[in-house]
């Protein structure tokens, strides 16, 4: 029953507040209710009124009415505190799963000061911020992430309880843009490296069919890293190991290099490997089913790889909740090129 009501309420709010990165708070999308303290205050006023009636005390009546008027006045004050405020999601964050992603939000006050505004999202929140009339302020809200993929908070709450804390006025911004959550790195077992270190390539190459390696003589143009130097030391032959589809090479980080582990763990391994490779400065490529990133190095390459890992198999969130308009707005161009395939 409660759930049903909750869902209905949620749908109703979602209809009222469409997904958008800009939200102008007004009568239409500000909600206001007494806080816990406000409810107690109401009860207190009632008790005061009864005291006034039973003791026939005019001054208690007067005080009760005064405080009641303060309460109603506070309602307007609290509402006006939020009304006219424009909230813009300026920048979405990137981060590792389980950590918080910084979302930068710009709040621009309207005609009135916006005092003690608090942003919060999924249990994480910011302290009170004050924005003078007509001014703007950038706030960085940490949004908690649970798993890798696209992170688009359903709602970011903008709340104020000023002036007396007896009432809370709030609204939500429902961002259209999303942040990217990278897989949490997990140290990978020595799979790719064992090829290099193993005494025998046949033994060391993974048994799985896909990762079967061919050995062929060295030819002009082969990278020196691919030469099986141990074999050369033993037999004097320059032999090059060639994996099927260029996979399993130490310069290629391969999704298929971890037999028997599930996807998420593989992605975590790969994320760790990306960081490893980046640290050692060795160029590397990334091979994911249906997607290949050519070997390269540098920050933007690393970022590209991490993004690919983050959104692997994930569906990009739609622009709108309802299917009314398609997804034409591309808030973040990076990562958009290879995110369409599903597994």
């Amino acid at each position, binding site marked *: 029953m409660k759930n049903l009501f909750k869902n209905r309420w949620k749908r109703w709010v979602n209809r009222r507040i469409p997904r958008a990165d800009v939200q102008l708070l007004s009568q239409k999308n500000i909600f206001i209710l007494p806080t816990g303290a406000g409810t107690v205050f109401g009860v207190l006023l009632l008790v005061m009124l009864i005291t006034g009636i039973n003791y026939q005390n*005019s001054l208690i009546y007067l005080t009760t009415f005064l405080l009641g008027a303060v309460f109603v006045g506070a309602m307007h004050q609290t509402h006006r505190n939020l009304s006219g405020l424009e909230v813009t999601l300026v920048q979405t964050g990137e981060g590792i799963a389980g950590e918080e992603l910084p979302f930068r939000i710009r709040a621009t006050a309207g005609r009135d000061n916006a005092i003690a505004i608090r942003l919060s999202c999924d249990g994480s929140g910011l302290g009170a911020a004050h924005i003078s009339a007509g001014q703007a302020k950038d706030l960085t809200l940490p949004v908690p992430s649970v798993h890798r993929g696209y992170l688009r908070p359903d709602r970011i709450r903008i709340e104020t309880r000023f002036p007396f804390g007896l009432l809370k006025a709030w609204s939500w911004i429902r961002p259209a843009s999303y942040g990217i959550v990278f897989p949490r790195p997990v140290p990978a077992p020595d799979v790719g490296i064992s090829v290099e270190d193993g005494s025998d390539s046949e033994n060391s190459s993974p048994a799985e069919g896909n990762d079967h390696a061919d050995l062929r003589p060295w030819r002009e143009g082969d990278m020196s890293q691919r030469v099986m130097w141990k074999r050369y030391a033993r037999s004097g032959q320059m032999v090059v190991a060639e994996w099927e589809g260029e996979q399993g090479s130490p310069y290629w980080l391969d999704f298929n290099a971890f037999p028997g582990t599930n996807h998420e763990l593989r992605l975590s391994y790969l994320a760790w490997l990306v960081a490893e490779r980046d640290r050692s400065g060795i160029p590397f490529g990334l091979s994911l089913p249906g997607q290949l990133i050519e070997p390269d190095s540098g920050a933007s390459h690393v970022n590209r790889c991490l993004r690919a890992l983050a959104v692997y198999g994930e569906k990009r969130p739609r622009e709108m909740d309802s299917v009314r308009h398609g997804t034409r707005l591309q808030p973040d161009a990076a990562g958009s090129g290879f995110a369409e395939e599903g597994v």
Partner: protein
Amino acid sequence: MRGLKERSGAVSEVPSPTSGLPSRAVLWLIGSFALLLTPQLDRLPIWLIAACAVLAVWRCLAQYGRVRLPGRWLRAGIMLVLISVYVATVRGRFSVDTAASFFVLAVGLKWLETRSSRDFYVLFFILVYLSTVNFLFHQEIHWTLVNLAAIAALLVGLQVLNAPDFPGAMKASWRRLGLLLAKTLPIVVLLFVFFPRMSPLWSVPLVSGEARSGISDTMRPGDISSLAQSSERAFRVTFGGEMPAYRDRYWRGLVLDYLDGETWRQVAGGGYQRPGRVALDGGVGDLGPRQYDVLLEPTDKRWAFALENSRAVSANVVEESEDLFRFKRPADTSVRYRLEREATENRGATSLPPAEARRYLQLPATGNPRARDLADNLRRRLTDSEVLQALLTRFREQPYFYTLRPPQMPDNGIDTLLFDAKRGFCAHYAGATVFVLRAAGIPARVVVGYQGGDRGAGGDYLIVRQYDAHAWVEAWIEGRGWVRVDPTAAIAPDRIESGLREAVAEEGSFLEDDWTSPQRYNDIPIIQWASLQLDRINYQWQRWVVGYQGQSQMDLMSRLPGGFGLKELGYLSAGIVGAGLLVASLMSAWQVRRGERRDAFRRIVDTWHLLCFRAGVPVRTGETPTALAERLGRAEPAVAESARLFARTVNSHYYSDNPTEGRDDQLQRLRRLLATMKKQMRRSHSTAGKRP
């Protein structure tokens, strides 16, 4: 996940780990507490005030990091000690007074654990209710202002709590609060006038169970002289017609008819009666020529003071035997009541039933032999009224003195007074007179009340103070009924003609212990004037604002057209609240509109931008209408044509030197186009939605 939880835990309401609350907010709270205590200083036990002061100072110092707040065990110890002291002093009596002390104690203890904003709100609520309780004890204008100031301080404290680091918060808070009150004041005043004053719903505990200064229902020889050192107000009276002369202002309170050793008591009426509901309706309308209104300060007793031969007019006093008046509920707050003097004197001059006569002739079996001898002497020679006269003559002619400093008369006090010391106060003489009369076989009783009363500012009402307390005698004379006999009048006529001040002027003992009383400095005109003006303001305040209750409201309403009853008033109040809310929301809507009032074209273009945004084509900075229309057309082919037309119209308004159409026509067209686009988009989506 664990990291998540930790983090969300860290983002609680309070930023600072040491004490959590902004210092200034706590200071305002403590300031408000101090203000709220001032009206109670005279009532609260000293230990409680001291404890509160210590705890509040402790909290203050802790706020600034000078000391630490006590740990759990120390706190529990302090709590235990203070609460046991409280329980020991209260001893199971329950009244608002004891409850208020408990509130104060609770606040005092709470200072030690105000750490979070939750504690702050708990204190806020207790303090607001404490101010309410204060109003039960004090309703004078200045205490009202103190209470309201305390509430204002609380509200400022709340604002500081909610925006601690807002620059210039203090000034802004006061300003905001002031504006808020100014805006809502009309509603508050209307509600105050029109909110239906229902009769009490149930009987509530007495405000105070403690004895207050004032006359009591027992009289020992020294009692009233200690009361004479107090200039506190007992009651105020407004007369409908002429004020009676000073010497006739005998305010009868109660009758003491039983002599128990040295002490006079009441034989009847001692039993406990459950206090009734509060009844403050003291009669309305203009006073008749023989009527008078008494506004009694709280006494916590049932008796009402009345002139001789009075009759109850208002319903909150009832006449009882012995021509006395009683409230149904002890006067635990100030009460107004109305009486009328009867035109015919000496009513009830019938015979005294034997049981009554026995009661008024009671004397202890032994003691005071010389007084008994005197009575026998008189009895043998004279009739009842002659005995009276003889006794008064004795007081008048022999060197008896009226003094606030009577000597100690431990054994056979009446003998000592009558034959040796000859110095005493009204209570001494009244007691001795009744003793002698009873010994002489004349039924007699001591009457306790007030005698006199000074005119207030403007001369239109009387102020009777505690030092006007008086005791006199009534004797039963066959054929005349109860006759008032005042030995003090014989000994010190000044006391009866013009009051205690003149009566003890030579002695210089008038209010000798009370340095702060303005009455003590009555010979300085400016003090006299100021104190009387203040009293007048308070009197009007009490009559018209504080006393605005059931009947007074009905009286006012009956003067207005419409004939409102309680029910109509209820509707009216609801209407006032509703209208207030409506006006407020209209005002705020108007303010919003004013903020948004812009060029009509600008508004339409904004709406269009919104439409584009919803269609997934947000406006880019510096984009021309035409370019936007093109993009919209690509996204929503259905509206392409209308969009292009719209953009052209906008361009021709903004950029063409001499537009072909008039301004209004352009606006019209833009509105039409906008509507068309909306419709087209809806239609294209509904058809698109049907396709799988």
